[in-house]
């Protein structure tokens, strides 16, 4: 059953509008002080605990493969000591934030969509609304805030581990001169790259939590609804992260260059 193109376009626009309204409502709720610190701490803890393994493994192996690949090329032109600089620059501003976001979307976004979707299908969200709790205050806001706060940290963690792993591989196994490689890395990795990585972390956190919670809250009723909401949450947030990354790179590069 292929939907006509116009209908799809219309649905996509509508979803975008609803996402914007959800975000506006969340911002209003935050401004009114509806964020429970306890709920936030709980979500933050779960998010961090759940993503540790995937973030560390992704960071480490991305750093490793990047180091190996770069070294093999650079070695031919005797630029071994520039290897770590390449790893560090691409990890900090691009690979670190994007891969972390993709992993978090799969791990945490899916869990959020499934949890909220189940709550919707079993009328728990309606029950919440009859018990004086706004779903945006009680469900969305803590998750959104926790993800936005945690993502830069997870990004930094993954970048750090990636660089560490690359250093260990390069210096320990491939025979790069550690002191030169380290100095080059510090020299070529500007503050801009680090800042860009952190800003991307914040934005990706927002994208993942917003889309996943939206998909959960709008979950179609019925047994297959939750499964569909979960899959769509992961697919949509991953795509949004990748597209967002491109525009953020363009925008932030200009902005940060202008500032420095």
């Amino acid at each position, binding site marked *: 059953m292929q939907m006509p193109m116009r209908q799809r376009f219309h649905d996509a626009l509508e979803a975008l509008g609803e996402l914007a309204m959800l975000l506006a409502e969340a911002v209003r709720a935050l401004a009114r002080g509806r964020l429970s610190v306890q709920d936030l701490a709980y979500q933050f803890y779960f998010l961090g605990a759940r993503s540790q393994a995937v973030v560390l493994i992704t960071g480490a192996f991305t750093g490793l493969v990047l180091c190996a690949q770069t070294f093999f090329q650079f070695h031919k032109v005797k630029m071994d000591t520039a290897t770590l600089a390449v790893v560090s620059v691409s990890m900090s501003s691009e690979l670190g934030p994007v891969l972390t976001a993709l992993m978090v979307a799969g791990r945490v976004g899916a869990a959020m969509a499934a949890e909220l979707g*189940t*709550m919707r299908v*079993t*009328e*728990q969200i*309606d*029950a*919440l*609304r*009859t*018990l*004086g*709790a*706004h779903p945006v205050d009680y469900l969305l806001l803590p998750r959104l805030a926790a993800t936005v706060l945690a993502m830069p940290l997870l990004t930094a963690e993954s970048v750090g581990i990636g660089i560490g792993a690359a250093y260990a591989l390069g210096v320990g196994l491939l025979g790069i001169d550690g002191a030169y490689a380290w100095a080059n890395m510090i020299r070529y990795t500007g503050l801009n790259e680090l800042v860009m990585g952190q800003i991307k972390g914040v934005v990706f956190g927002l994208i993942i939590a917003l889309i996943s919670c939206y998909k959960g809250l709008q979950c179609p009723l019925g047994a297959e609804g939750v499964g569909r909401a979960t899959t769509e949450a992961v697919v949509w947030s991953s795509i949004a992260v990748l597209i967002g990354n491109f525009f953020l790179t363009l925008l932030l590069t200009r902005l940060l260059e202008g500032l420095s």
Partner: protein
Amino acid sequence: MIEAREIVRRFDGHAVLNGVDFRIAEGEAAAIIGRSGCGKSVLLRILIGLLPADSGRVVVLGQDLGALDERGLLEIRQQCGMLFQAAALFDSLTVEENIGFLLRRQGRCSRAEVDRRVAEALDLVGLPGIQAKKPAELSGGMRKRVGLARAIVHRPRIVFYDEPTTGLDPVSADSIDRLIEQVCAKLRATTVVVTHDMRTVRRIAQRVLMLHEGRVYASGAPREIFASADPVVRRFVDGVSDPREVTL
């Protein structure tokens, strides 16, 4: 107390409710009956503001629900209680946290007071001492009772019940009916029960509204409904299907 004027609600172009009109007075116990899928749950959700009507007017506790946003509706709903068809207990919270949810959020009662009222509500529904259990550990009948405790612990002025006895064995169903009766008497709350269980109607209702083809088809005291000569009402009350509907 509750006033519905010409409520229309469509899903996918099909009008599930098509001009529903009634009033329920303060302290009255009304039963809304009708066949499965006729829009009883939809009507209940409109009355408590969970779902907007496409047109028409709903006035609850003197407030026009159509004029309120979600935050305004939250205030009104706190004076109401609702027992959902499948209880809708929060899976991640204990029985105690479920029942005390609204009281804690309102923050008007002390901790000890909340504990006391939760224990009292659990006593009332005949499940003392299960505060620490999670909903997953409870049977269907127990969940409904906990749901009932959660719906009444804040002493609401209106209590809505969506098919309270559906899916229960006759003995559990009877005990739920008895509980609803007790709650009516004790809280003196206005009661709206959606059901297709004639025993519930007999036991609780002072007035019956029968929903059929998107409208209030018949209304009156239970005695009148049970004695009705109208074929549609007759068939529903007696539980007999229309021979024309049965096609193999």
